[in-house]
């Protein structure tokens, strides 16, 4: 048994599904992702990206130490089991994006004092798909599912953009309408993370960066955010800065 910490909605999701097997979608020594009734739930070792749809197994360095062979996963009474290992939720963690005050949004024309250099792929992606640095329903439709891997870069950009609007308390119905079709067009993990972003649920690095916005700590937080995944953190940051620009313009 390994107690885990969980975001509130992940716990509720596990309690909402009937007891029974859940398919394992992806597995690595740092993370296991399962499909819980059409929603992706992760089991995250400390070095994995602490996605807001994950159970945090804080005390386990390597999931292979506790889950061996080719395990089956199932949910029983709201508790996820992987192989013979139960993962009871012992604590609720906050993943909601911190509120960003209006004056912080408006503070500077170029908000990021030290722009961490995004990876070439992200810069290239921005050049080809976000030439005018603006996201609306049409761009969202173009971005959704675009890119490679478990979380395509286009989805990361959209997630960063959506979460920043939650932080600023600004509704985004048009883009959300597009994103609602995500399950058909991208991986289940990425679709789940877009759902999280719509609900204002983010990675700790994203929240930490937002809290540091406009302060001396911001450059370090930007670098930490960019360090998440291959391009995911940089994608989230790109989406968020695009959102900041348009919010500032609108004001």
């Amino acid at each position, binding site marked *: 048994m390994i107690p885990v910490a969980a975001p509130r909605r992940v716990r509720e999701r596990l309690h909402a599904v009937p007891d029974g097997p859940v398919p394992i979608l992806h597995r690595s020594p740092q993370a296991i992702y399962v499909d819980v009734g059409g929603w992706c739930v992760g089991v995250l070792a400390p070095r994995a990206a602490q996605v807001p749809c994950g159970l945090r197994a804080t005390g386990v360095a390597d999931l292979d130490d506790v889950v061996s062979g080719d395990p089956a996963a199932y949910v029983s009474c709201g508790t996820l089991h992987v192989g013979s290992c139960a993962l009871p939720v*012992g*604590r609720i963690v*906050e993943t909601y994006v911190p509120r960003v005050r209006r004056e912080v949004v408006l503070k500077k024309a170029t908000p990021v004092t030290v722009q961490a250099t995004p990876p070439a792929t992200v810069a290239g992606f921005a050049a080809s798909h976000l030439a005018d640095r603006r996201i609306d329903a049409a761009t969202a439709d173009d971005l959704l599912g675009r890119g490679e891997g478990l979380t395509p870069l286009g989805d990361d950009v959209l997630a960063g953009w959506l979460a920043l609007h939650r932080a600023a308390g600004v509704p985004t119905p048009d883009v959300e309408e597009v994103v609602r079709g995500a399950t058909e067009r991208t991986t289940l993990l990425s679709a789940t993370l877009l759902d999280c972003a719509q609900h204002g649920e983010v990675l700790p690095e994203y929240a930490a960066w937002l809290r540091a916005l406009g302060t001396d700590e911001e450059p370090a937080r930007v670098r930490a955010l960019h360090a998440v995944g291959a391009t995911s953190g940089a994608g989230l940051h790109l989406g968020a800065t695009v959102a900041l620009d348009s919010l500032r313009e609108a004001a």
Partner: protein
Amino acid sequence: MSTDHVTIRTGAYADSVALLQVSRDVQRVPGVATAQVAMATPLNVEVLTGLGFAVPPGTTPNDLVVAIRLEDGGDLDQAIAAVDVGLTPTRSAGAAREAEPRRTTGSALADSPGLVLVSVPGASAFVEAMDALDAGCDVMVFSDNVPVAQEVSLKRTAAERGLLVMGPDCGTAVVGGVGLGFANATVPGPVGIVAASGTGCQQVLALLDHAGVGVTSALGVGGRDLSADVGGTSTIEALRRLDADDTVELVLVVSKPPAPEVAARIEEFAATLATPVELALLGPGQPDLTEAVERILAGLDVQVPDWPVVGHAEPGGGGPVRGLFVGGTTCQEAQLVVESLDPRDHTFVDFGDDAYTQGRAHPMIDPTLRLEEVRRAASDPGTGALLLDVVLGHGAEPDPAALLAPAITDAAVPVVVTVVGTRLDPQDRDRQVRVLAEAGAEVHLSNAAAARRAVELARGTR
């Protein structure tokens, strides 16, 4: 008669310490009078010669000498075998043994910091807690029976270093969503709590949880923190911490009425903070905890919910209220409410009081003593109403209702129970409530409401 056997092994080197061990092993072989296994250094040759062994000329310090003196009937082969075994390197069976656990708080903090939770006997608590402060770490002292002078010393040191001491005698804390001691499982949220009372804090956590308001941190400070002796040192630091946390929108201080000069100090300090601070002070003429929570909810623009009541008790023959509690503050609050409404001679017992815990675990862990008293009071027709609390959360017994329900099932008198718990508590609060209600109790979430209801029931049918 004994016989000497001296053999030289060239190119066989072993450390002198290893060879001492081998010599000792061989000496233990039955029939061996004495034995020396050594490198043939001049000193060793001298020792061997001194023992009467003849070392062949021409041996060098790089040679290994095996000198064995056998008693009559001694077996040379067995002795030589012992030499060979001794010289064969052995694989250590314990090589993979885990490092021994640390023995002091100080050594456990030597390599990496951490929040320290002290629950050793009171006479030793101060020393462990001081280790935490010396390592620059915050500490919660669950232990009781810590002299007030030590509390003052601990808190003064902490204040100098910007550290937080929760306790001594701090039963409950939540730090960044992690419950310490007896704490309810909470959802993180906008309210911060500073509590000089454990079960008072738990009642607030339970009510806020029901209202859908989360608490990320509830910092216990110990029952004496706001006394004149201690001066509110930990309360000030706790307020400072919560004010610095931008997720905290409102702070509630739960305490008995402080010493007047301490109250002034706290109010003065609270006025310098960006976060609003509300006080919930338990005492005669003060609002109860449920009212305090309702005020907080209003401040957060959250609608005050109906405090749930499950089950129903009917009045009996009337009589004074018998309050049997495991929580100090739940007991005190109930007593204040009951006595303010009804001047009769009620009795209230706090089974968590020192008098009931010497040499015993706290009643939240070991319910035996209270159960006996519950059975007695439940069958006593002179009891107007039996008023109980059940405190859930981390650290508390896994299924309190299972033991309490049989004791109240056959009660001859009305039974009112406050279940202090949240939805997330490991005991499954709703099931606990259901079991108690099915046993005939009227179960409340609000302790003050339960007390008022007990007064009502204690008036009897007439």
